[in-house]
């Protein structure tokens, strides 16, 4: 499903973000990407949805080399790869419903499809009663749920989550993790960058560890400590 082959990314020719990273992630996996700030987690994810391109090596998604895609094909790729961000990135002037509906509309779905799919997604993330609320009227956890609904509404085969619990308290984070696990159970591959050891250790999923741009560990059902020790 996802493959990185000797990927190197250097920003502005100076800042080494990733160096010689190779790995494979299969369909339906749930993978944690761990490491301290600046270890290359975000760059790893940005290469997967073509926010960035690799300077060396290749990134493959569903058999296609992401870096070689023409610009016109990038929107298509992004519909295969849903994204969740630490700062949610919701459109502030739109309601919960409109934020989720937008992701469907850009794929050219009919209004009828939008009307039937958005409410079922909002129900899945537990926000049926907040349909007409605006983002600023929601708690952080609720905003992240909207963001998840938006990322998942197209039923993408891959979901990328960049520190999705970074701004949330423990209980709320657990709720978000349950939601991501549920989405993963439905067949979507989830790649989540985090440095929250509690979440990683509670989930016992595959862990890819990055350190200063290098892949220093890859273990199924791995554990992680924020101090950097990986068992």
């Amino acid at each position: 499903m996802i493959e990185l082959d000797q990927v190197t990314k250097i920003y502005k020719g100076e800042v080494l973000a990733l160096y010689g990273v190779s790995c494979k992630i299969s369909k339906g996996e749930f993978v944690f990407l761990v490491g301290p700030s600046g270890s290359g987690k975000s760059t790893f994810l940005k290469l997967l949805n073509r926010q960035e391109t690799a300077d060396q090596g290749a990134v493959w998604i569903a058999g296609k080399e992401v870096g070689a895609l023409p610009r016109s094909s990038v929107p298509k790729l992004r519909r295969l790869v849903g994204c969740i961000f630490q700062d949610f990135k919701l459109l502030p002037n739109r309601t919960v419903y409109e934020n989720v509906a937008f992701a469907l509309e850009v794929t050219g779905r009919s209004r009828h499809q939008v009307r039937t799919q958005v409410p079922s997604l909002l129900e899945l993330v537990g926000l049926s009663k907040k349909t007409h609320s605006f983002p600023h009227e929601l708690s952080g956890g609720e905003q992240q749920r909207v963001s998840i609904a938006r990322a998942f509404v197209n039923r993408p085969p891959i979901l990328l989550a960049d520190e999705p619990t970074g701004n949330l308290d423990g209980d709320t984070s657990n709720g978000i993790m349950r939601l991501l696990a549920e989405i993963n159970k439905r067949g979507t591959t989830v790649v989540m960058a985090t440095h929250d050891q509690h979440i990683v250790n509670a989930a016992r999923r595959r862990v890819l560890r990055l350190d200063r741009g290098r892949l220093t560990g890859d273990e199924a059902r791995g554990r992680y400590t924020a101090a950097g020790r990986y068992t």
Partner: protein
Amino acid sequence: MAVSLGYVFRETRGNLRWNVTLFAATIVAVWVSLTLFGSSLLIREGVEQATGRWQGGIEFIVFMNADAEEAQHAAVRSALEENPEIGGYDYVDQQGAFNEFITEFADRPELIENVTPEILPPSYRVKPTVGDADVIEALAAQFETRPGVRQVTLPVEVIRTLQQNSQKVSVFVLVIAIVVLLAALMLIANTIRTAIFARRQDIEVMKLVGASNWYVRLPFMVEGTVQGVIGGALAIPMLFLMNNLMAGFVQEDYLELLRSLVVDSAVVWNTSLLVTGIGAAVGVLGSLFAVGRFLDV
């Protein structure tokens, strides 16, 4: 993939609702800029019209000998009537010339005492259809050599000066119009860019959820067009108002010169359509370029 009209309409409506202040600011920028530009065009039109009228009023005079025979007069008259470059003429006979002389030298009775109608030359005051100095000079030359003609006088210097000056004024006003238009384009583009800069994060999110560039661009372009057309349309009454104010001045006889600067309402309409068209074009292109800067996500 086709972008649905419903989507574009809803997005544009949303953009307008969420950004009322910047939307209004862009309209005002377009309105003021295009009013200035349109006014410059109208003034230029007025100047050309005015010089056209002054040039049209120029005539040359064919003086006949006092004793010219009737046949010679008839030959000159038929030549005047047949020439397509001559719009008409007035014949001033000897008595008429004498009357003019009396009027002209009313304060010098000693001159009038020594003049009788018989010694004054009759003349044809000829009105050419063109105002060009070279053409009028060539026309006048045709009559100079005819039998019975004493002299042809024409105000070539006056014509040449008028032509040169009107050309200078016309070019000057055109330059001002172009400078105003450039300033207007920059002001409008800048306002649109500010409006879109305020929404660069929205654009980033749209791109990240898989919107194609056209999905993001189109609502902004429609918005830019609406702003451009409204701003241009608002300039129309201003242009009419300006022309009417000028007409008001003329009626009250403030300035005789302004009479010719008042242009026909058809000209104002044409200028208005041009200005509105420019408004729409600037709106579309301004948005297109402004959005383009933020599409690279």
